[in-house]
């Protein structure tokens, strides 16, 4: 429900600064996912919003009111932890109702609420069980139910699915997506898994090294990454990077490197032309390379296929392009033999260029 604003948020442990001035605004009822590799500061940011970590500098505003001096319980939020953080000595019903009991709500209200959220997450038959007698997925649901029961406006998730096995994770992810549509809350979700980020988020915030790299809708981040880090982080299999140089020949922009010589067209060509440095990194997603024997060599890559990874309808080919490795996603029906040298047409709208030194997108 409420809006949240992080204003120049800084976290230091002793002399080490781990968050360098995070600026972020989360609108009402938005599902924001903070994503990044380990140690990027995403969990720390979340824990600062929760009030579990002190704010070293800057301020957190909830509905334009500063909250960084408040205790967690005064911040109107609920949180789901990575290890679920259930109270082992209480049964499911007691776990769910703990916050309500502390708030001394009337018994009838507590019972009704426990029943409601237990139904919502499918735990009705397990209310009398202790967490020790539940499976991982059930514990996860209890953690979710406990957070739901609080009825707070802000819902925080700290890698809630990372302790589950792959199948269960997919299932819980779907349930989470469903739940986020039903309950109107401001949700902030931390994960290192970009698939979770893509599937759940209204807005993704990519963090790295204590800085926000980019924020936007999943589509924006996937299609228009602002730098090489975001480009490489979002998308599976990851984007291919090839070092090359920009050249202008007969009025047309080319990017050439060891094993490739590619003509640019459209928007990206204009950007390349305007760019001052000639040293760039070419980025192409595996899905933007299409097997085409008769492709125009000026808009195609010629690759040596080394390994084919069959993953069902799609296969991922690991290929060599000069010294660099390139992954290509193809339909599994494509007739490919290992050791072949094949031509793949490059989808011109999928061509990304990054400055070699700054790593920013052109």
């Amino acid at each position: 429900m409420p809006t949240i604003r992080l204003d120049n948020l800084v976290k230091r442990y002793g002399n080490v600064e781990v968050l360098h001035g995070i600026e972020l605004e989360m609108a009402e009822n938005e599902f924001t996912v903070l994503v990044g590799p380990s140690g990027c500061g995403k969990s720390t940011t979340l824990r600062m919003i929760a009030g579990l970590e002190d704010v070293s500098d800057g301020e957190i505003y909830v509905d334009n009111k500063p909250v960084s001096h408040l205790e967690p319980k005064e911040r109107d939020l609920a949180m789901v932890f990575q290890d679920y953080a259930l109270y082992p000595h209480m049964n499911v019903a007691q776990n769910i109702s703990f916050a309500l009991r502390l708030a001394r709500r009337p018994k009838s209200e507590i019972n009704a609420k426990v029943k409601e959220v237990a139904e919502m997450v499918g735990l009705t038959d397990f209310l009398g069980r202790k967490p020790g007698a539940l499976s991982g997925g059930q514990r996860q649901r209890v953690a979710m139910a406990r957070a739901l029961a609080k009825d707070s406006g802000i819902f925080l998730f700290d890698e809630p699915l990372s302790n589950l096995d792959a199948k269960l994770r997919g299932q819980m992810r779907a349930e989470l997506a469903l739940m986020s549509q039903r309950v109107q809350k401001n949700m902030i979700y931390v994960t290192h898994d970009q698939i979770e980020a893509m599937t759940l988020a209204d807005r993704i915030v990519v963090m790295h090294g204590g800085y926000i790299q980019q924020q936007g809708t999943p589509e924006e981040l996937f299609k228009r990454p602002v730098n090489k880090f975001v480009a490489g982080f979002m998308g599976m299999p990851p984007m291919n990077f090839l070092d090359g140089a920009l050249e202008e020949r007969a009025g047309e922009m080319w990017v050439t490197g060891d094993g490739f010589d590619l003509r640019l067209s459209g928007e990206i060509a204009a950007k390349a032309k305007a760019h001052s440095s000639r040293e760039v990194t070419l980025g192409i997603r595996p899905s933007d390379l299409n097997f085409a024997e008769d492709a125009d060599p000026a808009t195609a890559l010629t690759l040596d296929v080394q390994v084919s990874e069959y993953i069902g309808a799609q296969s991922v080919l690991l290929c060599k392009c000069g010294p660099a490795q390139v992954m290509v996603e193809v339909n599994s029906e494509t007739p490919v033999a290992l050791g072949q040298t094949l031509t793949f047409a490059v989808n011109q709208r999928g061509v990304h260029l990054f400055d070699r030194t700054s790593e920013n997108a052109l």
Partner: protein
Amino acid sequence: MRTAMANRLTPYMFMAPAAIIMAIALMYPLGYMVWGSFRDWNPSQTIGEAEFVGLKNYIFLWNDPNFHESLIVTLKFAFFVVTIEMVIGVGLALLLDREIRGISVLRTMFILPMMIAPVVVGLMWRYMYHPTVGTFNRFLDSIGLPRVDWLGDHALTSVIIADIWQWTPFIFILSLAALQSLPRSALEAARIDGATAWQQIIHIKLPLMMPVLIVTALLRLIDAFKVLEVILVMTEGGPGLSTEILALRISRTATEFRELGVAAAMSNYLLILLLLLTVGMFAFNRWQEARAARLNALVEEES
């Protein structure tokens, strides 16, 4: 065939020396004591010369008001000592379970009393309790309060205080270890759920520490029944029988009254008492393990 047999015997061969030493060092004296307790036995006699009297020693003690008195003193001592030590020890652990400057020095200091030999503790406290030159009475003098007859009228209280001073650290370190192994995230969840510091202690910390606390209390209880040196040095059981706990009475029965049979019988009563406590502790552990196993089985069944 032969190798298989030898293989099966190997572990027992390795265990044999330890088993033999255990038998000699533990079972032999114990058996000797039980055997002796059925005899009217004077230290100048060998056990063979002593007259066999059956349960006479046990029956005598059962009806002996002095033994009753001693038993009551022991129970009183153990109860107060363990209760107060638990409250203070756990309280200190709750207070010191945080990261502040110099906390490790502070923790070490709290543990020091436990490292001092009991005889030294007894001597130290005897001097501090001394009616005229002792620390406490001199302090009372200096602030104009009347002196207290520490080891006279209040002897039992005084020895209880000394024991608390020495053994609270034991409970403190075990509680602190229990506290620090609590799941951090559950406590964070409690903070988010709105629990105050006090509510966190009542609803989360203490219930989760309970298994450790119960075992700690039992260990201390067993120890408290056997305490000897501190009281021996401080009061020698006096005045009257007011601080004559069982261990002390046993030692005096054997050395002063020269009644080894009665002393042995008394030891056996104490042993039975301690056995009951120990069995209680084991039963509690077993019950907990069984419960955990049952829960795990339940989960496995479902998944």
